[in-house]
């Protein structure tokens, strides 16, 4: 066969898409519909030479196509006239497709974006919420001296509280920090009050691995020191942060607890959708001895501190039940965030 209707249609439509002026449009019309040399005119004149059988099939298809193309040409013409005649650059670039091929239900072209680990998203969100309250942030050593991780926080070598913080050691003096509270005294030693700062970072516990325990995980420590801080400020701040993070109707409860480095100490729980209370953070007023260890005069200043677990917060927020998912790198998981 001397002609290919499908190709002719494609070529016509792609040329039509490039058209920016009326002159170009007129040239295209002549190219296809011109009385003597128009492509479609030529095809029409060759149709009678086909066999009867071919004529029966191709005749109606050709006529249909011719109608379609003429219609497209008209649509394009009206597009051009509706655009400002002064500036050809502002012509609407509405993509043109034959109405036969238009399928609004077909999926769009797939776009690939990067996804952030939800633990990091949580940390970033918490940083932002606290930023509103005037807190800045900084991280420090993950492998730290026993001195900063324990002793300066009133946890001596023989303190029973060490039981609750199973510790990895490099040697007698150096530990993998068991909490970001190790940053408290480090920061106080080099900064004068007033202090409002977060210490987000990785921490380590020598726990058997299961759905809720990993050898390394993140914590966000917060520290405020000024001359006027109180438990009501601490409880109010935590309540605001939790409600901003989990939703304004989130239910929380606070109860007394024990940490050697805060006095009084509290823990805070959030009511989960499943009806269970989930502990998400520990907090308290900085113990006067800890302030002293940080070279801050406890007679002039007081402060409060807290520590929260971003994994646990992400688990609560997104309904994740296995902490290992955050760290096994499965993109089928990460791509959901």
């Amino acid at each position, binding site marked *: 066969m001397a002609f290919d209707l499908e190709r002719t249609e494609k070529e016509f439509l792609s040329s039509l898409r490039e058209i920016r002026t009326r002159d170009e449009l007129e040239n295209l019309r002549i190219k296809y519909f011109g009385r003597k040399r128009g492509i479609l005119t030529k095809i029409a004149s060759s149709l009678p030479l086909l066999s009867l059988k071919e004529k029966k099939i191709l005749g109606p298809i050709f006529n249909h196509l011719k109608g379609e193309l003429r219609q497209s040409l008209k649509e394009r013409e009206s597009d051009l006239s509706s655009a400002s005649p002064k500036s050809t650059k502002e012509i609407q670039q509405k993509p043109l497709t034959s109405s036969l091929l238009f399928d609004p239900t077909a999926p769009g072209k797939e776009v690939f974006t*990067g996804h*952030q680990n939800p633990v990091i998203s949580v940390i970033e969100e918490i940083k932002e919420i606290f930023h509103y309250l005037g807190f800045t942030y900084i991280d420090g050593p993950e492998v730290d001296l026993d001195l900063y991780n324990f002793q300066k926080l009133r946890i001596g070598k023989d303190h*029973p509280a060490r039981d609750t913080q199973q510790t*990895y050691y490099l040697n007698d003096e150096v530990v993998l920090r068991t909490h970001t509270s190790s940053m408290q005294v480090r920061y106080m030693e080099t900064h004068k009050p007033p202090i409002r700062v977060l210490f987000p970072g*990785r921490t380590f516990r020598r726990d058997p691995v299961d759905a809720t325990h990993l*050898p390394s995980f993140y914590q966000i420590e917060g520290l405020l020191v000024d001359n006027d801080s109180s*438990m009501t400020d601490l409880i*109010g701040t935590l309540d605001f942060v939790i409600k901003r993070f989990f939703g304004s109707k989130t239910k929380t409860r606070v*109860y007394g607890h024990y940490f050697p480095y805060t006095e009084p100490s509290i823990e805070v729980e959030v009511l989960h959708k499943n009806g269970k209370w989930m502990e998400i953070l520990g907090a308290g007023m900085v113990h006067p001895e800890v302030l002293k260890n940080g070279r801050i005069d406890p007679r002039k200043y007081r402060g409060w501190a807290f520590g929260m677990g971003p994994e646990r917060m992400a688990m609560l927020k997104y309904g994740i039940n296995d902490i290992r998912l955050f760290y096994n790198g499965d993109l089928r998981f990460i791509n959901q965030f």
Partner: protein
Amino acid sequence: MLAPLSWLNEYVKLSISADSIANNFLFSGNKVDSLHKRDGDYIFDLEITPNRPDTLSIVGLARELSAVLNEDLSTPDITIISSKSLPKNKAIKINVKNKSLCPYYSFGIIDGVKVAQSPSWIVDRLEKSGVRSVNNIVDITNYVMIETGQPMHAFDFEKIKGDLILRASKRGERIKTLDGLERIIPEGSIIIEDDDKIIDLAGLMGGENTEVTHNTKTILVHVPVYNSVSIRRTSLSTGLRTEASNRFEKKLDPNMHPFAFDRAHKLVSEIAGGMIIGEKKSVGFPVKESSLELSLDMITSVLGVEIEIEKIVNILTSLGFRIYPQPLDKNKLKVVIPSWRPDVAIEEDIYEEIGRIYNYNNFPKTLPKGSPPIQPELFLVDWGKICRNIFLSFGFSEILTPTLLSPDLLIKANLNAKEAIKLSNPMLEDYSLLRPSLIPGQLNVIESNLRNFDVIKTFELGKIFTTFIDKLPDQPTVFAFLITGDFQEGKGYLEELLKTFNIKPKFSLSKTYPFFEQERSIIIEMGKTKLGQFGEIAQSVLNNFGIKKHIVAGELFLENLATAGNPDIIYRPIPKFPPVIEDISMFIDKNVFAEKIIDTIKKGREDIVSSVFIFDVYYRGGNKKSVAVRIYYQAENKTLTNRDVSKTRESIITDLKKILQAEIRRV
């Protein structure tokens, strides 16, 4: 700590539901982990914090409930009905060698006991408290321990030879404990010995040689308060933890031992029929209670809520504190601390007592007062976040990998596992080394994801650990990225990242690098500072990980980048004059690098040649390759004339021929 409701109810009236009691426990700081129903009774499983051994007892927990619920507290009965003690025909001395090992204790000999099974109410309470019944004597010692928090031990008096010595153990001493195990006693542990043998691994478990059995007629009941640190050390080094050691390793009430002895004596006399010979002996009793001065203003200031003085006094007295007004200062109170609360030492400890019993949930919620302080960290550029955001926009996903790795993983990445920093007490081989690079962990992740994805782009921001500097390992923050792709694609991302730091570091070819293919990686440097490395992962490493795709990876040192980097963008005016764009193609020695060609074209012509790109490289064997470059001629101050361009073009061609021996194909 397991506490049956029925037992608590004996000392404090509980007319509310078990769930309500659990809530009241919680709000006072005694967290109930779980609540079980058993035989019509309820058992509370409480998490006891290490500062409160007084609540490792039924009486202590009842006291907490009495304070929260405002109910009266009663104490265990110690009155003995037939109070006639036996004549003093038997006696023993306990010689404590070092007073600090056992500063306070009571003991006495009880004769005429009939060892038998305990009555069912004792068995029942012990079982609900998680303790197995043995015989009536042993059960009573355990019962009183759970009730009062004071552990004690009963020896078969007839099996003791002579008097007793309590001392620190020497190296290599042994004892066969009640569980039938022959134990080597850690040096420095507290032990009790008689004239010819060690009879007690004090605070942890008694010796089999003086065990109370069905033939026992006379018992020695010893109620000590040991040095908590010694007990803890022995417990840690033997791995033996008992109900007794869990209490002894904390600061116990120094004044409880005579009472606990009397309570045990009463129960023995009633249940096993024994009676004391002579009188009990108490040493170091009583310890004087300490006191502190409490300022009412400070309570309000620190807690942030004003609580009426009557309420404060009520809370403290119900917990056993005694309050006295200070005649000269209305703002102050004298508080005498009960002996069972050695954890209370400073005023802040008292604020906690008031706060927790008052209930923190009744506190108003306020925000920090005053304006936010200006702190130095506010002025730091968060380069880590900038790196993350750029790579997220490139379509990379953030993958966090473990800090602790196995030697195997490092070996798979051609790294020397022996050079990595090792934990002194790893739990598993899999988590025994600190990562010296983020790449091995990331390769693991890529391998597992290739089952589900064709194209993988990952990054991670985290610390790595190299050599020790002074006492701590150097722990730089590293930004690592990996893609399934080729060198050029990866380098595009790398260069775009470096642009945001506003730096143009030097790239130099690295001959070898553990996990990169030989001569297929570069080192990125700024002056003498190494910023990172980038290259193709070696085929051997890909094989080790079972990865059947090409991977390129980069690792950049964030702190070094931050030092070199400059966050300030300086706007450059958009060129006013149009560029002239021309292509030159040439044959050139196959080993001449692109950078050399571009430099040759640009050098000395920066005012006219605004940019140069290599857009085609074609090589099909031989010594030469074909290279096509596109040159943008553009001046900031004028439109270039044909003459300007042709003059420059000629000089470029001359340099290409002379310096690089290029053979110009087409201009």
